[in-house]
């Protein structure tokens, strides 16, 4: 009898322990569903993908950071202070003392110098953010030099605007890696490149524990973090490619945050119990590129007219609801000098007048290369309808992303509908793309968006170049404002929207911050109550 009782008790215990997991996730663990099949590496010197950039942002520290609410406020993170030399070409950084890497090693100027030199020497996709200051694999050791245990100098080829340099140093490519740990794992002089692809050597609030491609990424609290320790012990990214699946998982409570929801799903979740929606401005910009090789589109009145033939607000409220907001300048909200005016709205009468002035009272026919994703096609069809109101017959040519982009890059399109994401947090990234075209010939070496649309702008290019050298931040911001207004009025771009990132999360999650760039989504202080 006693044995039977023991058996029953034991099986009850067993049943209790292994009872089917309640849907709730553990209180110290944040589980996110996200599509992260774009990750190819976890090495901050190479990461240039949306999802990996966010992970780098939470696991590594950079020299400089900016206020997520007000991007114009810069502050030191690994750097304690900095000083620009008289000629403006050299910046001396002092490193904050007492920081440690997750491995327990001290973070010193040696690590910072190593990290910057390493990124330049490896020369992967994001390396241009650093090499644009005149560094090459050969000269970087003479240009970025350690001058003390906690001090180093950063010497550039020109007197660039200090804000430009500092914003560039906030990007993931300037993350500080643990020199000792990386060199321990070096093979054949690769600076630890092969090892760091799948491993971690940082000092951020979280440490990367594991990456299982297309399955999961696991972050754990970094106990050695110098700042305020993360309240969460663990953050798990789960790869869930289908947005409808993410929605169902969130409703059931299997996950805490769903990251890739469409407008209709968000609308449906707004009314759901126990779920809240948070949004943040992102840098992505949706625009139409009008090829100036097309004689009709090259007429200034036609360019102007097309800007009055998009129902910006209706698209932002319906087809792209919750994903975009109307924005018509080339610098997204949250950048230094960004212009937030929206002078254009749907006005077919005005467009007709302008077209008549251009000698096209009956409109014209034109094609648009449209990527076959639902959002781009949806916008394309809506634009097609409003263009028709002024007699502009828009033919949509569908194709996959590679097809349309190849055609665009070869300047063979009429109109291209696309999305542009800034490469780093400084206004120069978009100014260089939209408002600079040093060589408009077919064989040009630099092919920014202005080149792709064959917009020949020697004057504006000079202004763009001058803006990166302007030392005074306020004057610099004013220069960008002026350029944006000029491009808005005359440019061959119908800039329509700025992207919004939306995350739907359970009510008990707080402190998850959607920042202005992809590496600025932060959960270092996120908690679950």
């Amino acid at each position, binding site marked *: 009898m006693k044995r039977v009782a023991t058996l029953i008790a034991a099986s009850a215990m067993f049943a209790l322990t292994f009872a089917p997991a309640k849907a709730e996730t553990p209180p110290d663990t944040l589980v996110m569903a996200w599509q992260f099949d774009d990750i190819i590496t976890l090495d901050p010197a190479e990461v240039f993908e949306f999802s990996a950039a966010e992970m780098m942002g939470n696991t590594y520290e950079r020299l400089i950071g900016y206020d997520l609410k007000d991007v114009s406020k810069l502050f030191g993170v690994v750097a304690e202070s900095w000083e620009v030399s008289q000629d403006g070409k050299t910046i001396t950084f002092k490193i904050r003392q007492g920081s440690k890497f997750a491995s327990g090693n001290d973070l010193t100027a040696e690590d910072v110098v190593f990290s910057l030199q390493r990124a330049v020497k490896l020369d992967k996709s994001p390396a241009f953010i650093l090499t644009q200051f005149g560094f090459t694999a050969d000269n970087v050791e003479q240009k970025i030099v350690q001058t003390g245990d906690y001090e180093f100098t950063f010497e550039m080829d020109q007197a660039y605007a200090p804000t430009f340099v500092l914003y560039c140093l906030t990007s993931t490519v300037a993350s500080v890696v643990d020199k000792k740990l990386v060199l321990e794992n070096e093979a054949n002089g690769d600076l630890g490149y092969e090892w760091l692809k799948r491993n971690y050597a940082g000092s951020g609030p979280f440490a990367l524990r594991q990456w299982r491609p297309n399955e999961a990424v696991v972050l754990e609290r970094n106990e050695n973090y110098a700042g305020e320790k993360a309240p969460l012990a663990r953050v798990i990214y789960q790869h869930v490619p289908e947005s409808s699946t993410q929605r169902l998982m969130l409703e059931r409570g299997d996950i805490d945050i769903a990251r890739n929801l469409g407008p*209709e799903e968000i609308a449906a979740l707004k009314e759901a119990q126990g779920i809240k929606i948070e949004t943040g401005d992102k840098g992505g910009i949706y625009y139409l590129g009008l090829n100036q090789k097309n004689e009709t589109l090259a007429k200034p009145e036609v360019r102007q007219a097309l800007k009055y033939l998009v129902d910006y607000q*209706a698209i932002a*409220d319906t087809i792209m609801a919750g994903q975009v907001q109307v924005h018509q300048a080339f610098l997204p909200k949250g950048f230094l000098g960004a212009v937030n005016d929206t002078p254009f709205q749907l006005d077919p009468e005005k467009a007709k007048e302008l077209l008549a002035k251009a000698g096209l009272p009956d409109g014209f026919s034109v094609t648009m290369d449209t990527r076959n994703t*639902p959002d781009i096609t949806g916008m394309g069809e809506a634009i097609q309808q409003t263009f028709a109101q002024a007699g502009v017959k828009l033919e949509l040519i569908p194709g996959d992303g590679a*097809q349309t982009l190849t055609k665009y890059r070869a300047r063979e399109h009429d109109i291209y509908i696309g999305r542009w994401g800034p490469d780093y947090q400084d206004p120069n990234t978009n100014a260089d793309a939209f408002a600079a075209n040093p060589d408009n010939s077919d064989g040009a070496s630099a092919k920014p968006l202005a080149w792709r649309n064959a917009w020949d702008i020697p004057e504006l290019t000079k202004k763009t170049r001058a803006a990166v050298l302007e030392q005074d931040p306020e004057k610099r911001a004013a220069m960008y404002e002026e350029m944006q207004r000029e491009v808005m009025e005359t440019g061959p771009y119908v800039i329509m929207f700025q992207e919004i990132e939306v995350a739907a999360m359970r009510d008990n999650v707080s402190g998850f911050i959607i920042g202005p760039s992809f590496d600025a989504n932060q959960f270092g202080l996120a908690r679950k109550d």
Partner: protein
Amino acid sequence: MAELAAPSGKSSLREWLTTSEPRSRAQARLGNAYRSWVAFSRNPLAMFGLFIVLVLIIVAIFADQLATHSPTVGGDLRTERLQPPSAAHWLGTDNQARDIYSRLVHGSRLTLMVVMLVTVIAMPVGLLIGTVSGYMGGWIDAVLMRITDIFLAFPRLILALAFVAALGPGIVNAIIAIAITSWPPYARIARAETLTIRNSDFVVAVRLQGASPFRIITRHIMPLCVPSVIIRVTLDMAGIILTAAGLGFLGLGAQPPTPEWGAMIASGRQFIIDYWWVATMPGIAIFVVSLGFNLLGDGLRDVLDPKAEK
């Protein structure tokens, strides 16, 4: 005389058609066709298939009269978008505030056009290659059949995708791409039929009279291969519709805003949970029409296949 010349009334026409002693070739042929029709009409499923196809054709012809709204111009995005089926919009509205019923009705034209053009292009090509290959034999046969094999070695949709990528998107290019990929089975069937009849006595007799290979193939072999190819084509039509819809679904078929059914499903996919009708309605249309062609093809096989019992 008068009585003979004017056989009036249903029963006498029937007698004229079913007589065992036809007086002319035309009468014999018509009689044969009538017997086939009687056999066909006894198969209720085949009749159902025929009915669906006829409805499709009628809808396509009278699309302008049947549609209640414009298939391409949508209503107000803010108020008329993604409306459920109602009196104003019988099958609801889509992402661009367009009436789904009107789009389906106009889309039937595209579907029918795709099916007919593919048939018109692919069937003669397949028939010619198959009969020539089967009749001539030797190296011609080897070369033609290896080409056929190459085409058969690719999955059809993938090959069509590759052609569309090369030709550029658009409904005409989609039709060409589907036609290019759909002739090989017809060639195979025609070749197999040809092999069984190339040494028949009547073929040998024509050859002895000095007929050229061209004449023998076109006048004596092709007509005998046509029935089995027609059956195969009818059965394939469902596949053609699905391939066209597949290309449309992948955004490489018809150009927006053309109301192509596959493209309509693709655009409704993202709303499937909350706005089921956007993707479901064109899905039902594709399903019904494909089923119709399949049933029709099945019925035709029972009637036309010489080996099947009559």
